[in-house]
């Protein structure tokens, strides 16, 4: 086009554009942000696809994630090893799903993964209690926490196994049109 950048080859940028919801400019900007997180670790030249992963501790310090109660779970859900170490591809993937152009189904899948703390493909009562504690800290007594979680499972559980499977979760999301705009992090 005119912009001579040497960070990615054109084929790489095409692949990023086809597989995520970002444009070329945004991908280059994302690379800049990724590089800022760990300048000594992340090379400026990605043309030969280096295998570099930024650890969890550095990523959750980003201003967009720093105050988010679920920051650890978000980063873990998008990492390949489940420990929160993101390569650049995972980083781009994460913000692509969290952008405003991602469709509801895709967001629902990742939201389910985030709320599933023990990674057993179900949101059970313990997962809900952990979610609630992250969202309210010390304002609710343990009995109230227990009651709220029980009520939540009672409402959303359709197939009666006293935990929320992905189908239950998706059913609940379909009745909440705000979800698309609240499950959104701008970068």
């Amino acid at each position, binding site marked *: *086009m005119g912009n001579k950048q040497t960070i990615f080859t054109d084929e790489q940028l*095409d*692949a990023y554009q*086809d*597989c995520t*919801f970002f*444009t*070329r*400019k*945004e991908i280059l900007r994302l690379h800049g942000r990724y590089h800022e997180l760990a300048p000594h670790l992340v090379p400026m030249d990605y043309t030969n696809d280096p295998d570099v992963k930024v650890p969890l501790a550095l990523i959750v310090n980003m201003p*967009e994630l720093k*105050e*988010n*109660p679920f920051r650890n779970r978000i980063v873990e859900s*998008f990492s390949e090893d489940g420990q929160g170490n993101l390569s650049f*591809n*995972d980083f*781009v*993937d994460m913000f692509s799903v969290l952008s405003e152009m*991602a469709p509801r189904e*895709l967001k629902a*899948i*990742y939201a389910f993964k985030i*709320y599933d703390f023990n990674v057993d*493909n179900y*949101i059970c009562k313990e997962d809900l209690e952990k*979610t609630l504690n992250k*969202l*309210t*800290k010390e*304002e*609710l007594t343990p009995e*109230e926490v227990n009651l*709220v*979680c029980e*009520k*939540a*499972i009672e*409402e*959303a559980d*359709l*197939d*009666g*196994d006293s935990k929320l*499977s992905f*189908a239950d979760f998706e*059913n*609940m999301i*379909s*009745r*909440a*049109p*705000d979800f*698309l*705009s*609240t*499950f*959104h*992090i*701008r970068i």
Partner: protein
Amino acid sequence: MRRMSVFPQHGTALGNLGLTANEIRQETENNTSELVSDLVNLSAGARFEAIRSLHVPFNEKKTIRNRVNSVKLSKTILAADCRQQVSRSFRRFRASLASAMQHLVIWQDTLKEIGGRFGTSVLSYFLFLKWLLQFNLFSLIINFCFITIPQIVHAPNISSITGFRGLELLTGVGYFNKTVLFYGGYNGEVIVSKPAYNMQLAYFFTIAAYLVLCGVSLIYSTSRSFQKNFALETGPVSGGAWRLLCSWDFSVVNEKAIQYNKNNLAIQLKESLSERLQEKNKMSRSDRIKHLSLHLLAWLLSLGLALGSCAGIYFLGTNRELAFSFSHDPSDLGAEASTLLLPVVVSLFNLIVPLLYSLISKIESYSNPRAKIYISIVRTVILKMSILGILCFYWLSFVPTNISCWESFVGQSVYRLLIIDFIFCLLGIFFGEFLRNVIGTMCIQSLGVPEFDIARNVLDLIYGQTLAWIGIYFSPLLPVMQVLKLFIIFYLKKISLSMNCQPPKHTGRAAQIQTVFIALLFFPSFVGALSMVAFTVWSLKPSDQCGPFQGLNTPFHTIFNWTHSLPETHWVRWIFENILRSELFYYLISLIVLVITYFLWQITRGRKELIKTLREQIVNEGKDKAFLLNKLQNLQKERREMASYRPQDFDQTPHFNPNWMNTLPMDM
């Protein structure tokens, strides 16, 4: 398209079914090949959307994309290189167009900051403001290019009667009277240049085209918003599950705001718990009658207030000394200032009566807090639209018979209304938010920091936009004012929000209220403005001494004159006379539209039934699963007991994972 299984087939899941590693790999490979062949059959745009929406990590997406591309290439006839180059350069062009368009987007960073600090519902107000700004900018550009520039270039020499005095900016008369700002500054001659430019047609068609485009854009936005946000509302939606899992706003990044949201969530959860725990007390009959009569009283009071304001405005407007003294003596400063009285009274009504409404609503009791918000919105909309309605009635029935060059008068009235509304908005920010914040934090601690009332602010924006749409026909450059006003209000509201207000506490169902606002912008606001302009163009006699439509019976007659000037067999003339002017055409169109609407309504009903059935099916499958698991466990227990009796019959206990059903792919 066949959906890939939600959770990747890692070894553990399928391993429970007793498959070996090779079989697992084979199964995954089969899935991927089927996916690739599905994707190849889609069109290019749909294919990339589908690839982007796959819920697999990025590297797998890239592999799938490369495979799809190679399959597509192997199927082409042209040389592989050429085809690849063409498609790639086309995609790059589209992407660069998208990123160039992003440059035109204003306020991107500011909106991000607002969303980060105050959350999505407050952000929706600012997005609404930006959207209105786009409407007005578009109108300004086309009006300026097609109407004003030709008029300025070929302007006859009109010298103003009075020199420029400062009051013009507020009242719009005097120096501005015969300028291109208002209808009177245009004349309808045909500019004789190389392509003859008919000013009458230009004026008519520019305004008509703009209003039609606005209407189309509003209908599209309303239906899109309705489709996204008024989804299936069956079952309890304000319960704990929703609040816990779907309502947390991820886009807020400011620490204080997050703490605030956490507090709110805790309070709402406690409230909903205490509601649950309390016995739902059945209201006695006399209580119910009391509530109903209070509601009735409140409605009567509100409608009475609205009616009273309308009557007051009408009598003020038709007061001959006030209204018309100015047009008789244009150099009288006092008379000019007195024209400001009506706009000030209108703005005062718009400010005070909604406050009275909120006082009235305190005597009523609502079972549902959302009902309260909706009812107050309805009452405020009735008030504002009836005020605008009475003003339009006054402008269209009383004014044309009493003032010469009445369109300019109407344009100037709208201009004054907009300016005074803007001034009141500034005063409202200062007194309503700044002083209230000072009082709430320093003097009377119990009042607290004021909440940012989204509904009231959005309704004010809608009111201003309705005025702007009404005024476009009478004052083509009015959008300048509206653009400036929206610009300044954006920055002032942002500053006031950060300094003075706090975000609203009850943010549930924000998407639905958004839809209601967009629908309000279309239905009473735009449709009302359009009908007023249409009535003026269709049936009112334009003034004789000024404006582009002098001497005609109605402005619509320009079309008649133009089509009559075309030769008999010209296609435009034929379409106009045989289709647009014939009633049969409209009857047919209405009939067809009604039939199609009826069909679509029946389809919707059928789909609702289907959704209900599918929900019941999910519940039944859950029950089946529980039943089967129970039976399996009983069977296992029996076998184990029998094995303990007769161990020689059973060499090995069957290794069975009771959870095997959970590991099946979702689409089975």
